[in-house]
């Protein structure tokens, strides 16, 4: 395997590897954060004492790593790169060299972020949202180069994903196989494309914001510094104008994976194929007008807060529609509970819970009470952990045979699911309670407050569960590497699925298809009376092609 490859499948695996590396790093920061919260001012086993400054760095880097260096590369870049050309019947991306450049710019961003841990003053510690004035002057956090490198890493990452977005969209517009109309595309492709559009149209203002913040820090401008006439609140708008659409950039590919997996293991056509696409596009539009719900306690005018509350609650409608469609697909289906399916159903359950608490946060009067507490932390872990980890694992268990040509161990996969599901909930359900009782986030030692002391046993329970949640992931790691080395060889179509990637070899050769497939129908014709089996691949003609007419 060439390291500098232009093959979209190799690039997908490269993104996956880097994303998994960062997932381990992000998990370690979570472990240290949780230990500190349960047993403040004791030594973290395997690390040592955590000073408040260091704690600030941990929470900053945990958020940055998980959102930008785990969720984005795995859900968007790895799955998008792997699936889009294969599912539309293309030989590769529209711009293979741009695709390679996109990965290497991302690798450079990863190196810059990694190096920021080792510069004097340590890595960034102004929160993953980098609010000024805290982030605008080195003196405020004691971190100079760490934060500059953090901004540089983000800028490089955005450049990389912009290249990826151009590639995804051009590929899907231009390289679809004959017969692959837009309304025959698998839903995961639709969701990847919508995510790419949302990303490309929302990230610009934050790129401008990052340049402005870097200028404030390095050349002495005062965009975000009140003493020079600047506006700290401006950053919050620029950040969240991207930051909230970003949630859907991550969520949509996760939901797309779940829709594929749920349909294949239900052996039924997906419920409401076209309306799901319309709901996705509507959600994409709405995602641009909800951002200020992150700023309800930033001194926002109540007359402005209310419209943002309303749009935030409206955006749950298209997502509820997608979720109900999944449930309707499951209704009276003949379900196979494979490891991939368990993770897909896990995503469904966990995401519903996270979506419901989102309505609390979206309502300005409620949010004023729970803002910046662990209730909010629990809420967004329910939404993002479901999309990124449950959804990502569903995708990995499902497409691993196609990616690597070998089957994963189902038993280990199921153990992995149940442990992850149980410990995830035992971490984050109690976290809602802790938040409602007033424990705020980003405080190195909440136990210094008298009224929070009774929460210490609950925090210890959360931490214990979190450690078990992290340890449960070893079942995946072991399964991944063992299957890679000596898993059963995968046939072309182990799950008896319809989409085009299953009609070529596992793993597909460079160029993907021996001949360009012709597409005759949509991707979800399961249990069709037209076919002897209960599946009907998109490229199988029911009558002999009429060559004479061509």
């Amino acid at each position, binding site marked *: 395997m060439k390291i500098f490859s232009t093959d979209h499948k190799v690039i997908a695996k490269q993104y996956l590897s880097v994303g998994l590396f960062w997932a381990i790093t992000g998990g370690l920061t979570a472990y240290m954060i949780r230990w500190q919260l349960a047993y403040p001012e004791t030594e973290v086993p395997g690390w040592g004492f955590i000073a408040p400054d260091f704690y600030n760095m941990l929470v900053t880097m945990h958020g940055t790593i998980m959102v930008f260096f785990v969720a984005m590369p795995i859900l968007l870049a790895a799955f998008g790169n792997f699936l889009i050309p294969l599912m539309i019947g293309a030989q590769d991306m529209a711009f293979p060299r741009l695709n390679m450049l996109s990965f290497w710019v991302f690798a450079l961003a990863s190196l810059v972020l990694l190096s920021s841990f080792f510069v004097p003053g340590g890595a960034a510690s102004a929160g993953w949202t980098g609010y000024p004035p805290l982030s605008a002057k080195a003196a405020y956090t004691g971190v100079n180069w760490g934060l500059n490198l953090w901004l540089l890493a983000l800028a490089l990452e955005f450049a990389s994903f912009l290249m990826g977005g151009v590639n995804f969209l051009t590929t899907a517009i231009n390289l679809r196989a004959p017969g692959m109309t837009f309304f025959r595309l698998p839903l995961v492709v639709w969701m990847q494309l919508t995510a790419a559009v949302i990303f490309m149209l929302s990230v610009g*203002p934050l790129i*401008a914001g990052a340049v402005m913040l870097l200028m404030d820090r390095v050349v002495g401008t005062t965009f975000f510094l009140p003493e020079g006439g600047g506006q700290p609140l401006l950053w919050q708008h620029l950040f969240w104008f991207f930051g909230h659409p970003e949630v859907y950039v991550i969520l949509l590919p996760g939901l797309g994976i779940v829709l594929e997996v749920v349909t294949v293991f239900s052996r039924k056509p997906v419920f409401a194929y076209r309306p799901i696409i319309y709901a996705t596009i509507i959600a994409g539009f709405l995602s641009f007008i909800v951002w200020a719900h992150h700023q309800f306690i930033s001194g926002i005018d109540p007359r402005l807060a209310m419209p943002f509350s309303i749009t935030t609650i409206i955006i749950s409608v298209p997502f509820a529609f997608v979720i109900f469609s999944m449930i309707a697909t499951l209704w009276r289906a003949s379900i196979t509970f494979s490891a991939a399916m368990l993770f897909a159903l896990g995503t469904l359950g966990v995401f519903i819970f996270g979506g419901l608490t989102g309505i609390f946060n979206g309502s300005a009067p409620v949010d004023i009470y729970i803002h910046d507490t662990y209730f909010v932390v629990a809420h967004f872990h329910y939404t993002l952990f479901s999309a990124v980890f449950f959804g990502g694992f569903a995708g990995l268990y499902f497409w691993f045979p196609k990616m690597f040509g070998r089957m994963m161990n189902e038993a280990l996969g199921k153990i992995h699911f149940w442990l992850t599901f149980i410990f995830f909930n035992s971490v984050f359900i109690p976290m809602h309670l802790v938040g409602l009782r007033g424990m705020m986030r980003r405080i190195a030692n909440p136990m210094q407050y008298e009224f929070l002391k009774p929460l210490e046993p609950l925090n210890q329970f959360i931490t214990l569960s979190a450690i078990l949640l992290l340890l449960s992931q070893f079942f995946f790691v072991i399964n991944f590497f063992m299957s890679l080395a000596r898993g059963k060889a995968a046939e072309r179509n182990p799950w008896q699925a319809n989409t085009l990637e299953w009609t070529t070899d596992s793993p597909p050769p460079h160029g993907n298809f021996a001949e360009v497939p012709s597409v005759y129908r949509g991707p979800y014709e399961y249990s069709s009376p037209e076919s002897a089996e209960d599946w009907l691949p998109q490229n199988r003609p029911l009558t002999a092609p009429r060559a004479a007419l061509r």
Partner: protein
Amino acid sequence: MTGAAVPPGKIGIWWFLASEIPVFGGLIASYIVVRLGSAGWGESSAHLNFTLALINTFLLLTSSMTVVMAHAASEESNYRSVANFLGLTILLGLGFLGVKAVEYTTEIAHGFTPASGIFWSFYFGMTGLHGLHVLAGIIVNVVLWIGALKGSLAQNSHRVELAGLYWHFVDIVWIFLFPLLYLA
């Protein structure tokens, strides 16, 4: 069915430009919102050199014309003419950057640096980011110009149009920056 009528490069460049608009859009919107919320911007703006900026506007507008003429020449496969018009475009772009450099030098010599307050933050930030885009466009045009001189551009003649689309975008951004910074 596959939509291959539009070449991939053109679709790609349009999506790229679509993602560039929010970058400058965010910056310009920030400028307008912050400016409306505080006083004293007009006095700072009065220190800018309007005449030089007007000359720069003419330089960029003319370069948009020459880049279109390069495209027209490439459609006729007249690469000598392509090289001439691209060369003119590059010269006009360099002229723009040269005038900008004179402006920056005089302003800084008079004590107006990026650290001189919020107007100057935006002025240097917006024109600086735009200047980097002009520089990038010049580099792209130089690469094409060398290709046109050597004759290797013939296989990739569509690139003249793609580079032209980007060049127009950079031009249009200036059409927004000029009145916002110099005239308001």
